[in-house]
């Protein structure tokens, strides 16, 4: 599945905010087709690292390469339209219909989406195509984030970035949407990078888990290896929580 050239590559990127190093020298390659999860406590620098990809944050030093090209050399709007982005805050435009929200990226590129294509995208995220004319405030939180995912996919990106995409959702919605995204990742052959503070979510959805702590990557393992005890003390500290919960639940069920 992995090819020689990585889809995404970080080369010694650094970013500081007022003498505090948010990201301190990260080098990392993410292969095409992989589903990577960036896990860490809040303030560990994972969101900052993710935002460097579509240049919502510019690194102080180092470079980020997307499909072999440094992102700094790409035109900003064009780069952002090639990279699907799902926000923790969802960020639907409240004055636009569901359909207009989904079509915004292609519209900015001067293309526009057909009604049928918007319907397809809604079906991809398991929403009724009839919702196209609704306003965002008429949707539930889970439905809104599904629209957010559909919007990220509208430009047919190769790369999907998700910043705490399910953070604001209730557990049932969260599980269902996680599963759907995981399905879309395989179905559309995407490269996906997801930032989360929830190790359980990372273990269940990703094929590669990157643990960040104080601006650096302290563990880079598959979920199976992490569960087998690899990755060092910080990673194992994060894995211990869902493992203890799972053990407790298993005990209760006996």
């Amino acid at each position, binding site marked *: 599945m992995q090819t020689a050239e990585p889809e995404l590559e970080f080369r010694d990127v650094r970013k500081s905010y007022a003498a505090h190093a948010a990201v301190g020298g990260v080098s990392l390659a993410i292969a095409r087709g992989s589903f990577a999860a960036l896990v860490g406590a809040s303030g560990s620098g994972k969101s900052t690292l993710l935002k460097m990809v579509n240049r919502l944050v510019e690194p102080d030093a180092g470079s980020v390469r997307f499909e072999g090209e440094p992102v700094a050399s790409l035109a900003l709007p064009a780069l952002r339209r090639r990279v699907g982005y799902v926000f923790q805050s969802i*960020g639907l*435009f*409240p004055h636009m219909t569901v359909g207009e929200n989904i079509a915004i990226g292609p519209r900015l590129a001067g293309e526009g989406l057909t009604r049928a294509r918007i319907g397809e995208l809604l079906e991809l995220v398991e929403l009724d195509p009839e919702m196209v004319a609704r306003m965002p405030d008429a949707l539930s939180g889970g439905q809104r984030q599904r629209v957010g995912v559909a919007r990220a996919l509208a430009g047919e990106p190769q790369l999907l970035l998700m910043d705490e995409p399910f953070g604001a959702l209730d557990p049932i919605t969260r599980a269902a949407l996680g599963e759907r995204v995981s399905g879309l990742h395989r179905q559309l052959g995407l490269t996906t990078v997801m930032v989360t503070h929830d190790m359980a979510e990372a273990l269940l959805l990703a094929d590669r888990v990157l643990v960040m702590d104080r601006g650096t990557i302290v563990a880079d393992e598959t979920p199976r290896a992490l569960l087998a005890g690899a990755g060092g003390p910080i990673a194992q500290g994060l894995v211990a929580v869902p493992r203890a919960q799972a053990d407790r639940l298993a005990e209760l069920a006996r």
Partner: protein
Amino acid sequence: MSGLWSTLPMLGDQLAAHVLLSASAIALGIALALPLAVWASRSPAVARTALGFASLVQTVPALALLALFFPILLSLRAVFGEGLPTLGFLPALLALALYALLPILRNAVTAQANLDPGVIEAAHGVGMSDWQRLRLVEAPLSAPYVMAGIRTATVWTVGAATLATTIGQKSLGDPIFAGLQTQNWVLVLAGCLASAGLALVADALLGMIEQGLATRRPALSFAGLAAVLLGVGLAFAAQAGSTDERRIVIGAKGFSEQYILARLIGRRLERAGYAVDYRDGLGSAVAHKAVSTGAIDILVDYTGTIWTNQMGRQDNPERDAMLTEIVAWETRTSGTHVLGRLGFENAYGLAMRRERAGRLHIGSIDDLAAAAPRLTIGGDPEFFERPEWHAVRSAYGLRFARQRNFAPTFMYNSLQSGETDVISGYTSDGRIEADDLVMLEDPKRAFPNYDAIILLAPETGNDPALVAALRPLVGAIPVEAMRAANLAVDRETDKLSFDEAAQLLARRVGL
């Protein structure tokens, strides 16, 4: 109050002018505020500076802000040439636009600052350029709040535009100021009602636009906008029809005699075939500057006022010598023509109720000086700032217990009600006789002579037909006739309008 319903329909001209002025000022305010708000949303320093400036402007009383634009524009003539208007529409427009700035700017900046950061991040994330983000996200989401700011600005501006009367711009302030001057409450009420009604209608229509924006019903917004544009268009059509011809503009300071003499002059010019317009309620300093710069064509002024205030003289020659010097000074400094004396004097003097003066044994300002520390003096708003007062005060060593300012009409009332003991009266005022007042003797001749004279703007004075039409006024008006005409508009009951009083005066002196 039956007079109210007959007065209101006569305000059409003022209403149209008021609508045009307010609409232009708000349009200019919007044109300034919106780009500034966009800039402010990109830079906190600009936001602080712009809001600070707009708030500062707001603390300047509207009346003063309007008046300040006269000297500002006058000094700008050095750059833009003599054609730059210094009174009337332009200064009113600029002052009101500055006044309208704050609510629009503040709402726009607040709306921008309160936009959901998640939505703004998403706008960046989907690849919008700065311009696209402004057009597609920030502007539509801020629009209802900006519209609310425009509504507030509109209500303020329509109200404040009544003050434009004082700098010579026709507005619904005309009947208010004229009515205040003569205690003609019907006129005041009519002006206030018309202005308040206009504000309410404008607020309702803009509210429709705001509602349409907030609830995403474009039809409602368009309907409101169409109604606003229709109203402004009608006002423009009404005004455009009347501004074609050259009008002779007659200025009047803010007291009855000035209003009456302006109408007397206006009637003569109309009979001679001129179209005339009035700029009423001008301040003393503004009025003289206005005639000498051609902002108005004709003004009745007083020799002592020019002598002490404009020429800055402190000596006190006899009246013929003073007039000769004034004529020479006007010719030399601005080319303003002095047509001649009207025939009466309207001197400043100190007046008391006869009964009170008698009880205190005061017959002259000398006598007054001894009693002054226990007495209250009232003056019109400019009196205590004038050099004449400073001269009189130091000549007699006057020190009063209290000093209070009143509009001229209320000044006389204050004497009757005992709130003041002495006032700065005018010798041609009908109320001196009607209220049984005495003018105190001025043995040291500290007050100069105040012969009423007709001033013509430099170019206006070169029109022989106009000069011929006004020449008969010279020397024609004795002080008794002027007093009677003044009293006819100032008295409590059976008031005459300025026009009627001017006719009365014309008949009495045989013109």
